[in-house]
């Protein structure tokens, strides 16, 4: 019994039922065990990424330089940029905005740099529902190729203070 010491020797062979169950479980486990790494390379579900250290000041300068060069308009007081496809794209998180609004071209491959000026934020692209963590002092460089035209929203999904629910940004794929 689970509440008593077992008999002196309990290391005994499995019965038939037990063997079947163990085999089925092992098989299931083994499938998921290989599936994730295999799909990591075979499927292109998760974008390739690189990570660097960057201070908030440095990152801010990169964002401003990009806006200066590629600004094409404004929307709700926020600059809209349309960077060249082989240029890096910078999106800055801070309490409580995603800055600036970015236009990307369909089918082109971009390096998107994400970093935070203050605390941790969550980069959630809706409605396609892809999620990434954005940390201060780290640059998260995602290699993304947008495939569907449209308007996308970036919702913050890591609690970041009382304005958290107002932290919504925008992204266009044209």
């Amino acid at each position, binding site marked *: 019994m*689970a509440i008593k010491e077992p008999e002196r020797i309990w290391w005994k062979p499995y019965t038939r039922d037990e063997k079947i169950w163990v085999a089925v479980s092992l098989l299931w486990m083994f499938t998921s065990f290989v599936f994730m790494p295999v799909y990591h390379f075979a499927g292109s579900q998760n974008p390739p990424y690189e990570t660097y250290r960057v201070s908030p000041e440095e990152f801010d300068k990169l964002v401003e330089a990009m806006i200066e060069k590629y600004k094409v308009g404004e929307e709700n007081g926020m600059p809209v940029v349309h960077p060249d496809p082989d240029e890096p794209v910078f999106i800055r998180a801070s309490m409580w905005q995603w800055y600036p609004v970015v236009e990307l071209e369909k089918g082109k491959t971009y390096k998107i740099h994400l970093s935070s000026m203050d605390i941790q934020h969550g980069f959630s692209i809706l409605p396609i529902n892809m999620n*990434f963590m954005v940390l201060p002092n780290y640059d998260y460089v995602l290699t993304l190729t947008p495939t569907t035209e449209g308007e996308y929203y970036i919702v913050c999904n890591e609690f970041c203070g009382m304005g958290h629910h*107002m932290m919504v940004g925008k992204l266009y794929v044209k």
Partner: protein
Amino acid sequence: MAAEDYRICSFTGLKIHKPTEDLIKWNTVTAILFLALGGLMGFLIALTRWPSVHYLSLQNYYRYLTLHGIDALLLWIIFFEIGLVYFTSAVLLNTRTVIPWAGWTGYALMLVGAVFVNFVVFAGKADVMFTSYVPLQADAVYYLGIIIFAVGALTCYGHFFANIIQAKRDGAYKHSLPLGSFGLAAACIIAVLTLAHGAVIMIPVFFWSMGLIHYIDPGTYRLIFWGLGHPSQQINVCAMVSVWYMISAFTVGGKPVNEKLSRTAFVLYIFFINVASEHHLLVDPIFSNWHKIINTSYMMHLAVFASMVHAFAVPASVEVALRNQGYTRGLFEWLKKAPWSNPAFSAMALSMVLFGFLGGITGVIFGTEQYNIIRHNTFAIPGHFHGTVVGGTTLAFMGFTYLLIPYIFRRELVMQGMAKWQPYVYGIGVAILSISMMSAGSFGVPRRHYDITFSGAPFSFTFDPAIDMFMSMVGIGGILAAIGGVMFILVAMGSIMYGKRLAS
């Protein structure tokens, strides 16, 4: 040790040492009170996430959400587990708690820490969620409270090892611990790992909050915090599985069909389950693909296998026991004749179903890199762990409380009619809550979010209208779960205070 310090339990025949009994009583009652507080917070935030009710104010929503995580996840579960530590390392072995004063010191530290944390959050100085990701900062008292609580908890989990060493010396067991105690041994081992990580990160953060250290690296914080935060959920899993085996033994006389199989599953937990911490970091910038893949796929699935084993072994123990009692007709007579109106038994059975189907399967799925990217920080995540820790662990512990009341508190259950229904009401409520959270999360609804209409934001995103229904169901499930929770508190506290005294 004087013989008069012991009594023989008339239900189980176990020899119970008076100081052990007191420690179990105090820890359990404290746990139940924190569950009441945490549950109340859960009820209020569930009402807030119900769009047409949207009950709490902005500030209170985040404040109560922080408290909900702390009171329900940390305090209810750990205080209860400390009760289990004494139960499995002394009562089950018919022996004593070797250093009762250490037990009381641990208890006092935990209580002081718990009061500090609750106080500082209520006072509005720590709206940081229980994860307190740096550089979001809480008042120093918050971190101090967590540290004091953790030191107390470590003292108590450590007591398990002192007890079993002494028990072996006293000849209370010869070679092997009973399976119930073995499961708690796994829990206590993981507790040491967890609390060591806690110390490594929380102490520097405490100094940082006082201005003595200037910078805490957010990546390192996340790594070490989840070395604390995730394995502590595995403590809960081990304790819960132990409780399943023990409830099966106490209520129907269930016996592990194969000790080797069940123990192997616990050993796999000890070795491999903890690296699954990584699944909190799958969409972080910091770690390489290999760190992510090895930790979540290779190692974790060994632990998933272990859970499959328990999912077989516990029902098998019930089946064998009931068949031995003569319920042998057909494949399923034993299942029909199982004591479904005994709340300890039904709580265990429901706990297994909810843990397995809602918590376990989704956990494995969301823990893969491919799925995580579309679920991370969405409402699906609290949906998953309301299957594991609320439907699974909490319900199992509720069931065990129904056994502790006669065995340890020596009281008869009051309101037995209500007690009979409690696991079902609570279980169904949690199931609705969990399923609707997961459904809403699959549309990208964020967790920890006050307003998914984004009022005041520069841009406004509109979710698929289907989520309205799911978010309302969150409220309805929350109400039902809260009713089930209140029923539990009434029965448990009512019995402890006013139940008929049972002769020993």
